[in-house]
């Protein structure tokens, strides 16, 4: 245990200090960092300390390492700077330069001392002759290390050279070279290409998420073209169902969530209604092969890029999704945390309360990034065909306050803002790049979305409809009745309001305070006063009618009471009826006086309205209710998006390619896709990931090209069968000597139950489907609602996405899945539909079994399997119908391991 602990201690030393590039900082602490950078694991724990370059001071609590005097090694490291050419004064070059020198004069060269764990600046600390015997072996190791590939995820991508390999027969493209190089290094034997039917199932599920039909299977299996597979890959990548399949992958990474809240959406607590528009944008963008960098920019700043284009603006659903009614703090925290993790693979969220403990992110930088998002808010714009934004609309972001202030929060505590530290927007210095934000003037359609032509047209149409309704009411009202008077007034209100709307719209077009505007404004004031009078008349009329009724009611009640009193004189009456009628009469009296009071109030209001109307009209009208927003945006998010989606930003392309790889092979090259920092795991194939990133960018950030490369590689096409020699070396298959077997994700399980039975509704896009319809809806699972406390249980059981964080799915195997797949009404119904449909086409037992195996498991049944199934059908048909037996057989096959397994 002790050995292990010291290894941990050593690694601890590496983690606590980040290595800034030598040229940035000449402050002495960088020397220590540089030593670690250069010597890596070769630097022993006792050298990973300040004292390697500095002498300890007596000073108890030094504020800066500059207070320490340098030792001989440190002094030499500093001095050599002036002797070197300007362009190679970096610390690594200087270290190399003095490696063979003997700074402390103990007779042993600096490098030798360091590699053997001794201080090159301390004369008393010299290696013994015994330890010097280990020098040649140590040097060899060290040279191997220096020659190895150095993974630097926070430095810009440089395209590595494709390695040469011995087994050139294996390699189809560059990917295979990188993979095979590791095979050769480790002595792994790559598995041969998978059987055609295995590959067929794999590639269909990987690209479009649906099993091939029997016709599609036949087409591929019978195709003699040597490039049949390549053609199939191209065909599937052009299939719009690719967007649905991969859309869900990216929805995981970008944290898609439908709205959360209560009572039919009356209180929205999380995300926003209609966020599905962003989902559709994802699917459509993927199908259009939109460049990834453009997608990132649109999600972060679509409203600043194309403010007049709803098709682009909907991309900002990425930000809208973080909306939290109960806490703006949490809202922004989530936005920062996941923007850092999803696009950059840095755990930015850690720096909220303190400087990042592993990666080069200061707490101040966190708040600089926060300042980028501080001004933004969410809103819902009207969309064509629906004025009620609760029913339909476009959720999006916009900058509401260009002067929003961000304070540095002490220890990340929102209750403790440091009001002396106002944070300016900025980026993470360690990743390089620039941040240039400029205010963006927004067009009228963006700032005043209700002035868009279609909104005006529809608003006028809605007003006309109201007017028509009032007209109809007027025509059907009985003459001279109270209703007729009310209808007449109602009609006049509707008509005047309609007129007012038209004039309001006119006023909005006029220049404020111009002559035209003033006369229009006065006209609006006149109309608004007229409306007030008409509405007061209507109210007065209604109050008058109500008063009349209350008078009548009182008269009736009084008469009833009198009658009862008279009855009492003549007949037996214990007083109950009188008491009741007394109560009723009292009530009627109260109501009458209340009605009288209301009438009086109405009359007063009417008098006031009439008085108002008689006055000279002003221009001070009440504008119509319409959505109006600032006419400029800070441009901060756009600048930030340009910084991220940039060839010079080190992690961006690497992170994207790692996500792509992860979803083709089950594990990322970096196994922690949301953490490329020092707390994440090291990549298995760093060169390959860098190469993919470089290739991705040079292909114009287009994902389909990268899918094509991966899918056409020999690496992807390997069989998943085992090999005992390779398994002994690499039991986790980290170095991909075989294809990894995977389980269908939740969506695929549900979609393929529907698809194989011929029941899948292929409709694409549109509003999300209620979570309670998860088992009955026939649509693809990507369209099912998933939000806080709103998800389909069946999906959850199969490890469906979690909305809080889902950078990688972790498929499990458990009895709950067995119960869901065997006992759910979904499987039962689809098994029955499947059995009926297949029997219809193959009304012979053996053919039925064969077709069912092919459709569900994408393979021919073995003869032993056929006989097992025939025995089952025979057994089950006893006392039951043969249909029922067949349905049960299909239910079994839908639960077969080969159904959910991707080999």
């Amino acid at each position: 245990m002790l050995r292990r602990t010291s290894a941990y201690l050593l690694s601890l030393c590496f983690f606590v200090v980040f290595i800034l590039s030598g040229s940035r900082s000449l402050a002495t602490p960088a020397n220590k960092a540089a030593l670690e950078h250069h010597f890596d694991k070769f630097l022993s724990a006792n050298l990973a300390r300040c004292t390697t370059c500095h002498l300890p001071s007596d000073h108890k609590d030094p504020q800066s390492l500059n207070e320490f005097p340098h030792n001989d090694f440190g002094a030499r490291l500093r001095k050599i700077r002036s002797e070197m050419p300007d362009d190679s004064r970096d610390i690594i070059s200087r270290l190399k330069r003095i490696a063979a020198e003997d700074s402390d004069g103990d007779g042993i060269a600096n490098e030798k001392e360091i590699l053997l764990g001794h201080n090159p600046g301390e004369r008393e600390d010299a290696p013994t002759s015994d330890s010097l015997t280990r020098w040649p072996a140590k040097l060899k190791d060290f040279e191997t290390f220096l020659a190895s590939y150095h993974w630097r995820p926070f430095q810009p991508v440089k395209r590595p050279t494709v390695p040469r390999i011995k087994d050139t027969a294996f390699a189809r493209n560059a990917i295979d070279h990188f993979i095979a190089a590791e095979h050769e290094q480790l002595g792994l034997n790559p598995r041969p290409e998978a059987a055609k039917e295995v590959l067929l199932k794999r590639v269909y599920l990987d690209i479009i998420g649906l099993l091939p039909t029997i016709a599609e299977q036949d087409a591929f299996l019978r195709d003699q073209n040597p490039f049949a597979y390549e053609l199939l890959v191209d065909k599937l990548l052009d299939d719009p169902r690719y967007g649905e399949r991969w859309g869900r992958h990216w929805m995981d990474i970008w944290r898609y969530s439908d709205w959360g809240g209560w009572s039919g959406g009356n209180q929205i607590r999380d995300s926003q209604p209609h966020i599905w528009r962003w989902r559709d944008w994802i699917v459509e963008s993927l199908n259009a092969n939109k460049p990834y960098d453009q997608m990132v920019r649109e999600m972060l700043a679509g409203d600043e890029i194309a403010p007049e284009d709803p098709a682009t603006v909907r991309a900002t659903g990425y930000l809208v999704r973080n909306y939290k009614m109960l806490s703006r703090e949490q809202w922004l925290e989530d936005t920062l945390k996941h923007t850092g993790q999803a696009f950059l693979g840095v755990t930015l969220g850690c720096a909220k309360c303190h400087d990042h403990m592993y990666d080069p992110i200061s707490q101040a930088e966190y708040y600089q990034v926060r300042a980028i998002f501080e001004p933004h808010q969410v809103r819902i714009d009207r969309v064509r065909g629906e004025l009620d934004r609760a029913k339909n609309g476009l959720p999006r972001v916009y900058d509401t306050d260009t002067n929003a202030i961000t304070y540095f929060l002490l220890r990340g505590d929102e209750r403790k803002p440091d009001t002396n530290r106002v944070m300016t927007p900025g980026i993470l210095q360690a990743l390089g790049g620039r941040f240039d934000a400029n205010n963006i003037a927004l067009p009228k359609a963006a700032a005043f979305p209700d002035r868009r032509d279609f909104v005006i047209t529809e608003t006028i149409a809605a007003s006309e409809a109201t007017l028509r309704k009032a007209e109809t009411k007027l025509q059907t009202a009985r003459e001279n009745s109270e209703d007729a008077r009310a209808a007449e007034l109602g009609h006049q209100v509707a008509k005047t309001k309609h007129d007012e709307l038209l004039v309001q719209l006119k006023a909005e077009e006029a220049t404020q305070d111009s002559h035209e505007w003033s006369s229009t404004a006065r006209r609006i004031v006149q109309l608004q006063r007229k409306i007030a009078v008409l509405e007061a008349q209507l109210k007065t009329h209604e109050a008058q009618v109500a008063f009349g009724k209350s008078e009548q009611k009182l008269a009736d009640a009084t008469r009833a009471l009198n009658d009862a009193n008279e009855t009492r004189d003549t007949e037996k009456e214990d007083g109950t009826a009188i008491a009741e009628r007394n109560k009723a009469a009292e009530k009627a009296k109260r109501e009458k006086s209340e009605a009288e009071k209301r009438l009086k109030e109405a009359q007063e209001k009417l008098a006031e309205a009439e008085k108002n109307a008689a006055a000279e009209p002003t221009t001070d009208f009440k504008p119509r209710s319409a959505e109006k927003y600032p006419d400029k945006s800070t441009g901060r998010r756009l600048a930030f998006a340009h910084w991220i989606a940039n060839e010079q930003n080190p992690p961006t392309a690497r992170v994207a390619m790692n996500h792509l790889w992860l979803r083709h092979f089950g594990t990322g090259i970096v196994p922690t896709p949301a953490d490329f920092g020092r707390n994440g795991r090291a990549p298995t194939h760093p060169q390959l990931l860098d190469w993919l990133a470089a290739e991705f960018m040079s292909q114009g950030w287009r994902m389909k090209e990268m899918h094509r490369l991966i899918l056409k590689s020999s690496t992807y096409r390997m069989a998943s069968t085992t090999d005992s020699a390779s398994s002994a070396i690499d039991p986790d298959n980290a170095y991909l000597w075989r294809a990894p077997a995977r389980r269908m994700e939740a969506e695929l399980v549900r979609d393929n139950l529907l698809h194989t039975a011929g029941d899948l509704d292929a409709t694409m896009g549109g509003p999300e489907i209620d979570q309670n319809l998860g088992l009955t809806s026939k649509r693809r699972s990507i369209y099912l609602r998933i939000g806080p406390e709103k998800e389909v249980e069946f999906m959850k059981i199969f490890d469906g996405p979690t909305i809080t964080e889902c950078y990688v799915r972790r498929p499990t195997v458990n009895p709950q899945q067995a119960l869901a797949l065997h006992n759910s009404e979904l499987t039962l119904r689809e098994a029955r539909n499947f059995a009926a449909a297949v029997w219809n086409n193959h009304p012979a037992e053996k053919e039925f079994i064969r077709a069912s195996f092919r459709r569900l498991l994408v393979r021919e049944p073995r003869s032993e399997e056929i006989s097992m199934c025939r025995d089952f059908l025979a057994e089950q048909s006893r006392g039951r119908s043969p249909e029922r037996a067949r349905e049960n057989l299909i239910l079994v096959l839908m639960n077969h391991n080969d159904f959910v397994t991707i080999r």
Partner: protein
Amino acid sequence: MKNKCPGVSRRSFLADTGMGFTGLALSAMLFRDRARAQGAAFLQPHRAPTAKRVIWIFLCGGVSHLESFDVKPELNKYAGKSIEETPYQHVLATEGKDVIGANPKHGNRKVIMPLQCGYNTYGESGLVVGDWFRHVGECADDLAVVRSLWTIHNDHGAQLTWQTGRHPRELEHPTIGSWVSYGLGSENENLPEYVVLGVPTGDCCGGAFTHGAAYLGPEFAGVRLNVDPRNPLPFIRQPENGISSEEQLANLSLLGKLNHLAGIDYPDDANLRARIKSYELAFQMQTSIPETLQLNRESEATRKLYGIDRPETKTFGEQCLAARRLAERGVRFIQLFHGGGGGGDWDAHSEIQSNHTKLSQQVDKPIAGLLHDLKQRGMLDDTLVVFGTEFGRTPGAEGTGRDHHPQAFCAWLAGGGVKGGITYGETDEIGFHAATNRRYVTDIHATVLHCLGLDSRKLELPGRKRLDMDHGEAIHEILA
């Protein structure tokens, strides 16, 4: 269904439903790697066990050791003073010891916070326990408290460390529960051998890994259950127009045969093995689980013992009682989470007094009830109860709370094979470092395995290198 086909055990179910010779041969093939790995010791304890099963209680977020089972009166004496002003200033010299990525802010937690609750001595052993755990204190003479634990990570990823022994950076590794499941197999084939109750650790800090099995394969992972008998497992019954239990049995029989046959080409497929097992288990659990979770079959007195009659203790009380019923029926490892999700409820960076008061109320009585109940039924003799958390909390104040403190924390064990009424190991006077008899997380694992009669070194798998640290060393001093 159980009534209709009595006594169908998992193995006989496979063998008797027409598997025939081929099926059995294939089945043997599928499982051969595991058998080979364990040699003759397969499913046999390596030594005489003192416990047959484990109830593993885990409090998420970091319970203060200082106010629970390692009370430090010196904190009251020096309250408000900086550690540097006390005779114990030396503790700061080795502050970040053993912790990877130590919290640099710890240096700021120097002003000592007094104890936030009172304390008392309990039992013949005179164990000192903070008032937040007075009911558990009453069981003092059954507890073996380990006060000298340390862990390796200073954030809530240490929750994963408590289950696997590894730094959270190393992601997935077999949990102690999965080793028990792997090493001992099932005592009752109608129930999973490894059950998870309560809300587990959030995804930030280990998530499903905290009850996973990593390379042992998913068949040895924990199975999560709700304690509600009406809905212990979704889809536990066929829908209304569903198939009969005879049809179900026939389906599962055919499915078992087909799945075994399909395994010919993939003899090393752990997922296939797990899936076969999951179907057998699912079928059995349709009857066994609702029966097991019928907590209302327990007497009023028993339910009261667990605090089920009170709103604050109801939830955890039901889980503790369910744990006992599962243990009774032969489940090997019952992992009970409290305060799970996110970083964990016990994470009292501020307002530790109200936080720990509220949370300890939820668990104190139920845990004590569990110990009493096990004892009165004679089950404590062969059931090992372990109480733990991911790390302790700082002696210094963080405002009104205490910060994470991986340098020292405590846990206790009770029951099958451990001594009662003893403490093992010590922290320094202010509870900063585990000082005497320092023990790491896996030493607790080793102690558990020892009691179960297992030797972790004999559970080796080919190609899987385990470190000394993974094995740990049993704490022999607390063994009976």
